[in-house]
């Protein structure tokens, strides 16, 4: 039986989830092809002549990767929650409105045009992915608006059509590109968590956490919107304001995630459902918990991606699908029974 959510319950659950996240991050940072010892790590960087390899691996390789996994997992999961609420569709995920194909198109354009300039020490791929993602969402939004103010079906269809069209363009560009270029594009499309620049990580984390806090602020309105636009309006919700804010924030944090890590599937679809099945649909709780669970899930998935076929690495998207699919089905069967029992 689900009781009403209270601030106390929300704080206890969020803090508990954060503690689990910290534990998972710590445990996963010790796992890998090279075994490292905590003691060595905490003994510091070492003197100039004798580099401490355990510390170097921990700080320069594993920590950035784990922070990025957290950031991307949280962004995708929260964005999934928001798109499912806005579109009132359980099949919605962060990529449903064309972010994936837009980002993909941006990447392949960057790759085949052979751009070799650097912006702030970075290759143009991430910028093109970011611009492609946001540009496409904007395009879908405009087309959706033409069918009505916030016409859910119109928006969804616009998303599907734009996705299909851009995917075709990606296929076309892939067919005319050189094999080396194709390889780097495909690798990117499969999702890949590597980032060494702490400045980028902290900036990304700042934006994503800020976005999630902003989304939490409008979570009661998202609850009302789950009952449809007209109902929400009659409950005193400023529909246009809420929809635009939620849509823009969700699209922006997804674009950040995609530009940093490529396309990682399943997280944005499965995590919101899993959290909803266990804790209920109240967005005031669903958003923060989905963010944390998304982070936990992607940290674990990425760790598995690092170690399953070591020393080689799997694309993390493969792991999220293989790990997430069955886990979600178990949850679905278990909790659907519980819900139907309540009838």
């Amino acid at each position, binding site marked *: 039986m689900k009781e009403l959510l209270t601030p106390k319950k929300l704080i206890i659950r969020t803090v508990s989830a954060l503690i689990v996240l910290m534990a998972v991050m710590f445990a996963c940072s010790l796992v890998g092809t090279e075994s490292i010892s905590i003691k060595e790590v905490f003994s510091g960087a070492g003197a100039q002549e004798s580099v401490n390899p355990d510390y170097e691996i921990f700080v320069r390789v594993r920590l950035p990767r784990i922070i990025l996994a957290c950031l991307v997992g949280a962004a995708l999961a929260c964005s999934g929650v928001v798109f499912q609420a806005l579109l009132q569709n359980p099949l919605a995920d962060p990529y449903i409105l064309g972010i994936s194909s837009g980002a993909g198109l941006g990447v392949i354009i960057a790759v085949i045009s052979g751009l070799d300039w650097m912006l702030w020490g970075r290759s143009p791929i991430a910028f093109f992915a970011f611009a492609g993602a946001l540009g496409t969402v904007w395009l879908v939004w405009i087309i959706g608006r033409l069918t009505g103010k916030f016409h859910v079906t119109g928006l969804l269809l616009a998303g599907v059509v734009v996705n299909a069209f851009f995917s075709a363009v990606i296929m076309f560009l892939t067919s005319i590109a050189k094999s080396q270029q194709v390889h780097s594009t495909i690798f990117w499309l499969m999702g890949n968590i590597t980032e060494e620049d702490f400045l980028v990580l902290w900036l990304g984390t700042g934006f994503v956490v800020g976005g999630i806090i902003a989304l939490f602020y409008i979570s009661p309105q998202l609850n009302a919107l789950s009952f449809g636009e007209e109902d929400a309006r009659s409950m*005193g919700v400023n529909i246009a304001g809420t929809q635009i804010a939620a849509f823009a924030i969700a699209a922006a944090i997804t674009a950040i995630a995609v530009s940093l890590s490529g396309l990682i599937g399943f997280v944005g679809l499965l995590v919101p459902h899993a959290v909803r099945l266990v804790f209920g649909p109240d967005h005031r709780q669903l958003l923060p918990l989905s963010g944390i669970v998304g982070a936990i899930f992607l940290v674990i998935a990425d760790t598995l991606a690092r170690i399953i076929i070591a020393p080689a690495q799997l694309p993390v998207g493969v792991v999220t699908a293989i790990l997430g699919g069955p886990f979600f089905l178990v949850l679905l069967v278990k909790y659907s029974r519980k819900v139907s029992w309540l*009838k």
Partner: protein
Amino acid sequence: MNAIIEVKNLSFGYTPQNMILRDISFEIKAGTFLAIAGPNGAGKSTLLNLLCRALKQKSGTIKIDGALIESYNWEALAGKVAVVRQEFVPVFGFSVIETVLMARTPYFGTFGFENKTDKQMVNEALEATDTAQFSLRPLGSLSGGERQRVFIARALAANSPVLLLDEPTSFLDLKHQVGIYDLLKSTQLEKGKTIVAITHDINLAAQYCDEILLLGANSNYHIGQTKEVFSPEQIEKVFGVRTFVGSLGKENFFVPLGKFAKDSDQITDKHT
């Protein structure tokens, strides 16, 4: 009593050639139970949507509690007018109490949580609609009648003086139809709410409502006391159907007579 809803020269249509409502004016006094009846396509739901600003009129004015409807922001308007629409079950399984609590969204604190007053309003609404017993169950697990009571509870929890309902008893069996109207009537009498309900059931309307707005095609409308408006002639004129009228005490009842109704030729006058 003052008019809580004042409509003046109201017109609405999606295109100028195809106006749904033309030049409609009426007033509803506070504490009245009014039914909007009329044939399909006459614009009943459109009118209801205009009264809660889900649609914007092309011309004319609507005043709620003395102020133009456009002068309210959404939160303030929700504090004046609560709406119960035709049944909509969200895809995600909100419980009954979560659903009712949403009516208090405009009053939530900075961190999005309800205070004591909100909880009290919700509890009162659950008690009044007899839905407290299943308040923790998911909305999707309820029967149509139970769910309709939950939506009425949500409208009551908004604590607004006006309640608009779009066919609150469609899809319900006789017992539940009467149950919903009993609930609405007691809400009117005990809490002094103004209730405006669209209905296709002229008998329920005749039994429970103080006033009727009979809305016919081409915005031919008639508003007044129930007995004045519901005459066999008016009903035939507006719906295009002859009726047999019977009386029980002071109440009139109408039986629509189709082409194949037995002895329909003989039944032309009012029988008492």
